[in-house]
């Protein structure tokens, strides 16, 4: 599976994130020579909370508060769970959501959609998207997923991804966007993941990225 990086837009201090940033980021991508628009994309994330046996009490502290479920745009038949505190990922068929519904021990409390435009640029695929609360569609962030098609080794692709990141940062700076894109750094080894890229790596990236997006959004409100 091709390697991906995931970035989120960090607005300059004192500025508010608006949909205009999404339009400006897409304009940056569309300014690259030879780039072509390649449709739309959408991933979604559910934040789960434990359902205590005695619902008059708050959820016990020994149960995880950071369980998230992710449905990725390029794997419609699969579903992944991430628990950052335990560095744990579960990859399953999408029917696992039905199992969780039947168990009733965890329920989705709030939901985030990542959706936007996809571009093809040589060996790269770029996906720029809004990070939206569901269902009121409040904008919480802008993310960009960068996929390098020829390589599935994280180590071997490091240099080319860093070069792309520099190109992208310079392009964004030159267009005077009110902020910058920050790459999501993850120690995959802590999650038991190897050098060969998998959907589990993507799930971990989204799990880390959304924490930073929400923190950034709360700071700038």
């Amino acid at each position: 599976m091709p390697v991906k990086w995931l970035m989120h837009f960090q607005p300059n201090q004192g500025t508010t994130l608006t949909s205009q940033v999404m339009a400006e980021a897409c304009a940056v991508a569309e300014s690259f020579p030879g780039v072509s628009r390649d449709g739309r994309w959408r991933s979604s994330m559910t934040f789960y909370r434990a359902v205590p046996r005695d619902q008059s009490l708050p959820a016990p502290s020994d149960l995880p508060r950071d369980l998230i479920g992710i449905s990725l745009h390029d794997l419609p038949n699969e579903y992944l769970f991430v628990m950052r505190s335990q560095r744990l990922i579960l990859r399953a068929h999408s029917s696992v959501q039905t199992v969780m519904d039947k168990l009733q021990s965890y329920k989705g409390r709030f939901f985030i959609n990542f959706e936007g435009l996809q571009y093809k640029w040589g060996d790269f695929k770029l996906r720029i998207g809004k990070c939206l609360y569901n269902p009121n569609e409040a904008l919480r962030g802008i993310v960009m997923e960068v996929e390098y098609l020829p390589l599935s080794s994280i180590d071997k692709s490091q240099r080319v991804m860093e070069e792309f990141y520099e190109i992208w940062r310079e392009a964004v700076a030159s267009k005077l966007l009110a902020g910058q894109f920050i790459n999501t750094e993850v120690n995959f080894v802590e999650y038991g993941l190897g050098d060969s890229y998998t959907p589990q790596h993507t799930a971990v990236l989204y799990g880390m990225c959304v924490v930073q997006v929400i923190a950034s959004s709360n700071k700038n409100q």
Partner: protein
Amino acid sequence: MECVVQGIIETLHVEALEILLVGLCGAPKQRIRVHELCLKSGPNLVSSEVRLLCDLAKTTPSWTIRHVGGAMRGAGADQLSVLVRPIAESKASSTALRFFYGIGYKLDHEVLKTGFAFQFQNRGANLTVSVTSTNRMPRLHATDDAVPITPGIHLVEITAPAAPENYTEVASAIASFCEYLSPLLHLSKPGISTGIVPTAASAAASLMSSGGGIKIL
């Protein structure tokens, strides 16, 4: 949703049953070696139960998460000779057990099921006939050291996927298929024991001597 019946057969007649099933099916058996872990939610969580099935028959073990719902009840269900129940299943990665421990589930018990299964099509329904020995492990997860819980007895189970709009037809398909096995064993709803069939020994002897000259479905 699935329809299911169960019955027991003496282990010494399993070979005869296999001959009968080979003749009926016309296809090779599938080996069963499944490590089944039953997990229950901890005392702080809403009460629930989930099963993790690790298929050890293949070179690379594969995991399935399975939730079994309560049996369908009511006059319609009572009239059926099979049990109908909701089922939810999902293939999962090998981190499934750690995942459920991580969200507050505890291991209640574990067994190793060994045996074989055949797949049949009968009246449009996809039937799986499995013949298994259920084994307990002397130490946690020690599947290599498992020993039969009921030596000398195997469990025979027929299951078929069903939907709300066709479960009565699937139930009929299972019931009619049970007729083929009736010389060797009787099958009924789980929990309703019919014991060992008196004709089993003579039927088994007949099958062993005929060596599989049975009409194929």
